[in-house]
């Protein structure tokens, strides 16, 4: 599912001629027209609004149609999957170069590079490959372990870390689809976690009911925090990017304050930390006590299915997508755009709240102001990488979960800072967002470009216009 498909502007309305002509030109023109449409919207809706971001770009929908007639190889060459794969590879290469460049051994051998260049290259290779092997062993399979359970332990760690990423990522993605840029997942996670934790350690209820209430409280907390942004945007036209950023800071300080009050602070402690959640309030472990993977992951899968259903099969979801694609058109069609904003932000907040639940009732089991780590911000990149589709977000969440889980191992075993993971992640998103760049770098054919012209034409020109189309 790509957001492109939902745009009411008829992308492929014009007759195609694959044989000759210049489809790219036409695409560019179509885009310009699309752009005009968007601009007109802007004039109407303008009022303290940066235009609703037309959710992450993709060339997918455009290409699938045209490529269906092309050969399989061509489809692979111009397809999205290849671009995604190459983006990951390229980002890893750049990350590897960074690791190698900053390695002390590499610096030492570079002093006699001209004398024995193989030393430098060897050192660089071992630095980069060592880090990446550690990353892999920390995130997928540790093939040096002696038992099977130790071997797959990293994989379960990945799934554990991916759980909040997926939940929060879904929230960001859903808001994207409604044309809202939700940077506030961080605050929504925190507030959701606070609500959930409070229910978790204050109420003492039987097994089952307690956890259910904890989950519910987390969702409600996040939904309130997100919905407030939606309400403000709908009522006053304030821009949601600013609002969500501010609400992140407010949430952090609010939680810090609450953790100094008797209702939240652990008795006898002077640190801002809450009591432990009751054992009835936490997610049961999914695979037994030797793994940290908990039922929150299953909840994340259910959430993904829910978001998929909501967006693609429900009236509400249709309205949200219509609002995201073109608010004026949606308004003309009788959709209550303001209600759409509120619903989208509330649901997005609720999903982020679920991530908060995964943290307090899953891994941390206690509320601190750092309980959200940086999941809220990572969720943005997750949603971008997943192109705002539920299952894409799910996959991206798994990938970033792997990076994060593996990064910890990598830092411990090779001393490579976990920050490199941030670099690689952001590069991946950047490259995937600009397919023309990847195509130009790897000399791939542009989708829809006629075969004869492909070679002679300057790759840049072609890719620029398709990029525009994307």
């Amino acid at each position, binding site marked *: 599912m790509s957001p492109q498909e939902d745009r009411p502007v008829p992308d492929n309305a014009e007759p195609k001629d694959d044989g000759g002509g210049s489809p790219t030109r036409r695409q560019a023109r179509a885009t310009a027209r699309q752009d005009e449409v968007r601009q007109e919207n802007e004039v109407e809706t303008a009022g303290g609004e940066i235009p609703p971001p037309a959710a992450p770009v993709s060339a997918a929908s455009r290409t699938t149609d045209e490529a269906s007639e092309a050969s399989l190889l061509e489809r692979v060459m111009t397809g999205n999957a290849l671009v995604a794969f190459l983006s990951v590879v390229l980002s890893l290469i750049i990350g590897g170069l960074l690791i190698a460049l900053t390695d002390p051994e590499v610096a030492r051998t570079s002093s006699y590079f001209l004398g024995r260049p193989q030393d430098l290259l060897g050192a660089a290779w071992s630095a980069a490959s060592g880090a990446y092997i550690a990353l892999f062993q920390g995130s997928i399979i540790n093939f040096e372990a002696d038992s099977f359970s130790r071997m797959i332990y990293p994989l379960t760690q990945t799934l554990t870390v991916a759980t909040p990423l997926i939940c929060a990522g879904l929230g960001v993605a859903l808001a994207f689809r409604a044309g809202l840029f939700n940077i506030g997942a961080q605050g929504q996670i925190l507030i959701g976690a606070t609500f959930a934790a409070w229910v978790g350690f204050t109420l003492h209820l039987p097994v089952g009911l307690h956890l259910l209430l904890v989950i519910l409280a987390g969702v409600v907390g996040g939904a309130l925090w997100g919905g407030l942004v939606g309400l403000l945007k709908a009522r006053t036209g304030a821009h949601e990017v600013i609002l969500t950023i501010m609400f992140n800071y407010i949430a952090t300080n609010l939680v810090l304050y609450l953790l100094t009050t008797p209702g939240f602070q652990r008795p006898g402690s002077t640190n801002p930390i809450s009591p432990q959640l009751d054992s009835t309030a936490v997610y049961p472990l999914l695979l037994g006590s030797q793994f940290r993977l908990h039922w929150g992951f299953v909840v994340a899968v259910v959430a993904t299915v829910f978001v998929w259903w909501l967006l693609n099969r429900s009236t509400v979801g249709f309205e949200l997508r219509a609002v995201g694609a073109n608010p004026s058109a949606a308004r003309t069609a009788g959709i209550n755009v303001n209600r759409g904003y509120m619903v989208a932000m509330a649901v997005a907040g609720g999903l982020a709240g679920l991530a908060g639940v995964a943290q307090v009732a899953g891994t941390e089991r206690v509320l601190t102001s750092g309980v959200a780590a940086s999941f809220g911000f990572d969720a943005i990149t997750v949603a*971008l990488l997943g192109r705002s589709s539920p299952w894409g977000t799910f996959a991206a969440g798994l990938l970033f979960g792997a990076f994060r889980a593996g990064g910890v191992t990598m830092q411990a075993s090779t001393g490579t800072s976990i920050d490199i993971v941030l670099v690689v992640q952001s590069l991946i998103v950047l490259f995937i967002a600009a397919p023309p760049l990847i195509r130009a770098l790897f000399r791939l054919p542009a989708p829809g470009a006629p075969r004869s012209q492909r070679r002679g034409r300057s790759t840049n020109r072609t890719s620029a216009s398709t*990029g525009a189309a994307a």
Partner: protein
Amino acid sequence: MSTATASAPTTPGSPPEEQGVRSWKNPIILSVLSVIALLVFAIGAPANDVTFRLSEQGDAIVLPPIVVSGPLIGWIAALVLLALAVLAVLFTRAGRRIPVWLLALFSVVFLIAFLTWVVGSARTPNVALYGLLAGSVTLAVPLIFGSLSGVLCERSGVVNIAIEGQLLFGAFAAAVAGSLTGNAFVGLLAAAVAGVLVSLVLAVFSIRYVVNQVIVGVVLNVLVSGLTGFLYSAVLTSDSQRWNSPPRLPVIEIPVLADIPVIGPILFEQTIVGYLMYVAVAVIYVALYHSRWGLRTRAVGEHPKAADTLGVNVNRMRFTNVLLAGVVAGVGGSFFTLVAVSGFNRDMTAGQGYIALAALIFGRWNPIGAFFAALLFGFATNLSNVLSLLGTPVPDQFLRMLPYVVTVFAVAGLVGRSRAPGASGIPYIKG
């Protein structure tokens, strides 16, 4: 009240812009705030006197401190605020817009009342006003540079979320270059270059490859945070003497002028970054509204098609403006490592870029407006620092929340509906 009613008729008849649609938002907000003022600042006023010191003992010109009575100021302010709120309600009922002076007066009185109340409630009800103001300006310097960078970008139609990244990379480059050369001015230059590098990526991806600008901005922030964090732990910490001990920029005191009480230290006792800040605000304001470049920039940002029709190369204009914005933000970033503290630390900009973005919107995409908005943030931050030293009854966390709450109120419409440049965020494709 008397001044308010006296000047009310003289205000120019507000344009019947919102005729038919009466917005009760502002009167409601003002009423709520004035009731809060009555309850907290007046009824809950501290019984003691509050001292605002205007100058230090050793200054050339020593002004006597201002000593006011807490309850007196509290009651006066609360009554004035209530009167203003009533006036706002009357204006709205008459179908007229609330004039700007009313909002301004309301804010100033509210601020004075709040300051009196909060300082008065502290353990030591005595504060150095000059230090409070000078500290605010200092803290606002990176914010002002950041929001100027945003002004340059957004006025030409490119949303710049990457201010945070520009500041952070500028800070990093300034620290490294300053340490390696031992010269703070080289660090300043390197900061500008670093800002341009971030801008270059933003420009290439958002203008050349037409990727959604907000996405590029967000991702760039993560990229810079990761990159500087990685280099910090891999390189800078290994030999911090060599890599991460930049010299500080010297404070340049302008003789005589720096001795003026209160405003002297603010205006004439700054580092070169501080002076550059004033210059940048003035230059960008004048250039934007009184030069050919400015007219073209605004045209490109409001209606690129029209600008293109008249022969302006839209995308080139945007490209150069984004790069220019990188210079401005980069210099702002150098503040962190060359002025505030000596040396780089992981994620040391701590979200200031986002605050700058808020200041930009708060200031209605205008350099002067952004300047004052950033000052307000600097003031709020500094106030919370000073007050936590004085020991106030207000929890520290709420004071830290203050700038953000103010922003929410501001963007939610207290300052009026701010309108972004028409084409901001929309890529331009010629055709």
